[in-house]
């Protein structure tokens, strides 16, 4: 099946299997920031944006993003790097495997929420699991990034 989509601001036409999932399609087209870490839609590592909303690319069929806008971290380099600088200044990227999905969700949160409280930040980011950092450093980085006390 053929799908036409805007990926990272570029209009493309891709051949996909009908039961192909978006995470696999994105990786097969060289967008290797997208990580798969579970089969049960629980971990958030595969987070990308579809129509600028955070979604799990592991449970979206690629055919369903036909004529939609899809964004991975490769598509928002400036903003991603800006936050990554803060995250790494805290040392809280650690193994880095959960970082791209985490950053995508943080940026989505920044676009959606105005002056979120700590509780709102934690709530928004709950779907991003991490096994290395214990979450404290990530929260410090997010607060610094948002300029929140």
């Amino acid at each position, binding site marked *: 099946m053929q799908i036409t989509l805007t990926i990272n601001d570029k209009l493309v036409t891709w051949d996909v299997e009908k039961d192909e999932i978006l995470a696999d399609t994105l990786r097969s087209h060289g967008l*290797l*920031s*997208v*990580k798969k*870490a*579970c*089969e*049960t839609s*629980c*971990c958030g*590592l595969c987070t990308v944006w579809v129509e600028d909303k955070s979604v799990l690319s592991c449970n979206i069929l690629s055919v369903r993003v036909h004529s939609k806008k899809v964004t*991975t*971290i*490769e598509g928002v*380099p400036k903003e*991603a*790097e800006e936050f*990554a*600088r803060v*995250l*790494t*200044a*805290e*040392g*809280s*990227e*650690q*193994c*880095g*495997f*959960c*970082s*791209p999905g985490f*950053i995508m969700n943080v940026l989505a949160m920044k676009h959606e929420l105005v002056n979120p409280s700590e509780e709102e930040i*934690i*709530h928004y*980011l*709950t779907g*991003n*699991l*991490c*096994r*290395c*950092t*214990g*979450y*404290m*450093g990530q*929260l410090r980085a997010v607060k610094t990034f948002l300029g929140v006390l």
Partner: protein
Amino acid sequence: MKKVGMKSVGQSIRKVDGMAIATGKPVYTQDLAMRHALVVKILRSPHAFAKIISIDVSRAEKLEGVECILTYKDVPKGRFTLAGQSYPEPSPYDRLILDEIVRYVGDEVAIIAAVDEKTALQAMKKIKVAYEVLEPVLDFEQAIGHATIVHPEEDLHVNFDIGLQKAQNIASSWKEEVGDVEEEFKQCSVVVEDVYYPQAQAHAMMETYRAFTYLDHTGRLVVVTSTQIPFHVRRQLARALQLPASKVRVLKPRIGGGFGGKQTGCVEAFAGIITLKTGKPALIIYDRQETFSCTTSRHAMRLKARVGADQEGIIRAIDLEVLSDTGAYGEHAATVLSCVGHYTLPLYNKTRAVRFTGNAVYTNKMPAGAFRGYGATQGTFALESTVNKLAEKLGMDPTEIRLKNISKEGETFLTGQGVLLGSSSLDRCIEKGKEMIGWKDKFPCREIGNNKVRAVGMAITMQGSGIANIGTASAEIRLNDDGNFTLLTGATDMGTGCDTILSQMAAEILEIPMETIVLIAGDTDTSPYDPGSYASSTTYVAGAAVIKAAKELKDKILEQGAKFLGVSLKDVEMDGLVVRTVSGDEEMSLAKIAELTILGTGNLQLVGYATQGCEVSPPPYVAGFAEVEVDQETGKVELIDYVAVVDCGTVINPNLARIQAEGGIVQGIGMALYEQVNYNDLGKMATNSFMQYKIPCRKDVGKVRIAFEESYEPTGPFGAKSIGEVVANTPSPAIAHAVYNAVGVRVNHLPITPEKVFLGRQKL
């Protein structure tokens, strides 16, 4: 050497690979795999214990796109171990790549290689296997003397005696006794005891196990794998595949976490043997279910702890009796078992007698392996919970009883063989933790209305730094022709940041900016030997090697610099990127020195090289304090605050150290409250996904606060000790203590779920 005025060490420097991995650059194993590598999948046993009567792969082989299918008939017959331990390993050689006997649900039955995943999975369905299903031994408390023998094979081998008694299903035994414990208990005013069951915690690292293999331009097998132990993997593969080790190269790229799980070989032999048989590159990726149920976990244990003290609260006798479940294979059975006593008994040195006895038993479940803490976690849960019980019986504050009994700097302990403690600030850690959590006002508990009660609990712990007289590391540092440096180590960074820490140390010695150092690691062809990242070794052992190598290079640079400047050695010093005379009137850049030595008339590339072992394993310490809020009607435990005060000697990189501590504490919190392991009656693991096995998410954790009380370890690089594992051990006993103080319920079977607390209250 004091820390004042250090430029690199002691600084919170960003990790050298931080930006690349955070922004998703393709630097992990799967990203580097060749595009058309064969996809390798494993057919697994549905039975906990069975013999393969027949296996027919003919229909599967006929499927288009299937390249190769291997069964137990097609693999070498020599047993090996997958343990990431120095040779000769204290581990039974009880594995085959594929065995006729399968020993747990998930044990490998066939290796399938095809052009893509879909084909491989289709082929898997067409393989016909007939099993003779045997009676499994699933309950580790029934294993000794059980009619079923998990490893009856004749060719089961051990390198030296670890107490293996295969007919009893005992993989390893351990006994250590100093003094006469029974006599001492008789003399004690108070003796308390209890039995504890820590669970088989899963590592749940975000990057599952994966490797890809290919044959290089000279026909050698190259293995790129997500591992903590490249050199051990090379040795394992050489043995398993029956190749000389020189024909195998192992590379470790960026990896997505390990926590000890990747201290055991896992997928490499499967991809490796496919590449050898087909000549083609092969890629194997374990999914999350396989990672949960077909790799390794923490050792589940039963620990009986008995502690006796006099009326003043001086602990005079400790007795630990351990039964450890090593599952179907015994890689880390002996060493984890020994660490239970090894990393707990030395905490209290007013003892007159201590005893540790234990057995590690085989069962027909997924094998246990190495997991952060490595026996100390389980032992700490048992001992510290019992000391807390003792404090209550004596009517003493738990922090006071610790302060009265802990080993202090300059002292030795019963099992220490006369070795003196080089550094400890544990007493200060306890005082600081007390203050931070508000112990005085909160101990033991207070009602806050609405059927909620808040309480605090605490525990202390120790670990080691490297393995005394066994762990060694080598490092090499070169001054390159452009005036920059290459640092070669074998230490494996699994996200912890040792690549960065080691560079910081080299930069400090050479007095150069860190940006001038390129660190290369994790390649058995080019890295100097290093056992890998485990036993909390990278800072302490690899660090020491790096410092030694850097010092050697520095001396050589100064020597050359003095020569070129025409002055004597005592008249020169290093300053940034130059060698200058002490008087300051002449200098030569390192780039110029390099040019003159390498490219010019010098004929000399300046290199520093060192191998470093360690004669001692100086313990780091943590004092952990938990504040919980328990709902008296439902039993739900909410973690309000966790304070951990750490003594890891000198802190080399404060940010990275803090993240290690926070991450370790949260893994400990998961073990204490959330991570439940369940098997069904037939031995199939039910908790094999993130949906069923709940590692802590952001909302589960409350506040975690870390502080450091630096001591100075004379044998450590810049005074440092380790931090990697010790941080995982305090949460279970501290939280269990807090729950007891809140509602009078002792939950000794981890995790502490609301229902267990509720049932406990009902029984009161």
